[in-house]
């Protein structure tokens, strides 16, 4: 069929697919699901950090944190817009988030217990996110790739800010050092889980689409490859921070040229993914409440816009 041939040609030539281009339904659906999940993660991901805005321990940090959470709202907007180029609208995607039909990154189902968590999220969670996202800047779908370029630029800024928070803490009082170490202890393993289930073995995702997604140019590296890259990048940073990562098996493997690391608790991963994490319920309820409380405002804005448009037509 002509559509498929044209599409395959573009993909084969490593060219970008644009909204005007015809594309296979599977490709479109996969992209919508992935971009939406990514957008939802930005929006839900605001919550754990917003939890510290009111209590940030200095005004400078408060300002940086507010700006960061705001950036995440911005990322959400770019990404919903990218998804909308595929013929869905934001309201529909939000409904799917709220009723559980679409997911967001499971990392945001962990609570932020101390100020150091604002640092650990920047350093580890944004660090892992960048690792996942940088390849997406070359994704075959144009609007997604362009959104990712913008997102990645800001994320790496956030990652440095997170590192800087921990740097200050680990050079601070005993209590601050302990706080930084505790945050590293709690966020390390969930960060490794952000790359998704292993490529092979018992815990691998049943019926994974990795191969197809790679063929489509939506995915460029396997989960385990990205995870290894992340570990290799992060271990030296932890050393610089003077923090111990909570894995006794962590060791440099001269032969592989990589850091070895211990087994991940995939039971926890699947448990949290399926809804039994510390904050799944709270995150969705918070989000849903904001949306429902704001319904009258959105309706009013639409009604006003309609009236204004009608007036313009008359005039």
């Amino acid at each position, binding site marked *: 069929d002509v559509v498929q041939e044209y599409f395959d040609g573009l993909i084969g030539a490593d060219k970008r697919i644009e909204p005007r281009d015809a594309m296979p339904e599977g490709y479109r659906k996969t992209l919508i699901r992935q971009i939406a999940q990514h957008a939802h993660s930005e*929006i839900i991901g*605001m*919550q754990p950090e*917003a939890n510290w*805005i*009111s*209590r*940030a*321990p*200095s*005004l*400078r*940090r*408060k*300002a940086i944190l*507010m*700006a960061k*959470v*705001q950036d995440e*709202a*911005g990322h*959400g*907007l770019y990404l*919903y817009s990218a998804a909308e180029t595929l013929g869905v609208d934001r309201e529909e995607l939000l409904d799917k988030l709220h009723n559980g039909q679409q997911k967001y990154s499971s990392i945001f189902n962990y609570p932020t217990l101390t*100020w150091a968590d604002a640092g650990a999220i920047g350093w580890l969670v944004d660090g892992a996110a960048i690792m996942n996202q940088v390849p997406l800047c070359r994704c075959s779908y144009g609007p997604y790739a362009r959104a990712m370029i913008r997102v990645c630029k800001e994320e790496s800024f956030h990652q440095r800010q997170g590192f800087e*928070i921990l740097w*200050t803490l680990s050079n*601070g*009082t005993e*209590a*601050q050092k302990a706080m930084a170490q505790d945050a590293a202890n709690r966020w390390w393993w969930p960060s490794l889980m952000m790359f998704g289930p292993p490529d092979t073995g018992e815990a691998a995702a049943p019926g994974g689409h990795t191969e197809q997604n790679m063929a489509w140019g939506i995915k460029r590296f396997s989960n385990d490859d990205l995870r290894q890259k992340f570990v290799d990048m992060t271990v030296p940073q932890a050393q610089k921070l003077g923090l111990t990562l909570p894995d006794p098996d962590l060791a440099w493997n001269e032969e592989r040229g990589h850091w070895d690391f211990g087994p991940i608790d995939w039971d926890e991963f699947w448990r949290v993914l399926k809804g039994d994490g510390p904050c799944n319920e709270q995150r969705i309820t*918070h*989000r849903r*409440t*904001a*949306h429902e*409380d*704001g*319904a*009258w*405002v*959105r*309706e*009013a*804005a639409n*009604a*006003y816009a309609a*009236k204004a448009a009608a007036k313009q037509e008359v005039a």
Partner: protein
Amino acid sequence: MSDAHASYVLGLADDALIYAQRLGEWLTRAPQIEEDLALGNIGLDLLGQARALLTRVGELEGEGRDEDDLAYLRDEREFRNVHLVEQPRGDFGQEMARLLWFASYQHELYAALLTSSDEVVAGVAAKALKEVDYHRDHAGHWVVRLGDGTPESHERMQAGLEAVLPYLAELFDDDEASLRAAEAGVGVLPSTLHDAVVAHVSVVVAEATLDLPDDSRWRSRGGREGVHSQPMGYLLAELQHIHRSHPGASW
């Protein structure tokens, strides 16, 4: 450098700081993502104003207090903000009513402070004037959209205007510090800003097909003397708890 000078600037700073704290609560709770962004932005602008002004207060005092000492280590009775900004978050309509009044007030205020004899204050005013111009517009657009939107939004927006009413008179009270700061050319008498603020808000309210509420049965008083309403203590507990839990630490 008189005490009144520092006190006056502290009042400006605290208004901005405490309202920034309240606006920060909207992040993740706004009716649409664009508003998470917008309210976050406005909060950030106010936080920036507060930081510059608090730093100036520290200089005027000459006791070595920096912005964080002033924000985190003062007790409730030492805060000089008006009651309007410390009130708990209401619904979005009520927030837009508060923001419209407060930004309109700040707009006239900073316009008058462009010629402050305190060059730092004049500098903050120049930068802030552009910011609050946007805040005022943003709130104004929403007041109009909500007032002239649906019957429900009209009613809620009207209720929002009523809810903030008792806290408005205080914005224009000439307290001791402002009297002396105005004399010294550092500050401006709040009462002189009243008419221009009301004029601006009235135009917006009329366009919104709403009524400007009549005088309130009661009015707030005393924020500039550190006599606050009860929500203030809880706000400060949240604001200061972590900082106070780690005396002397750097962040």
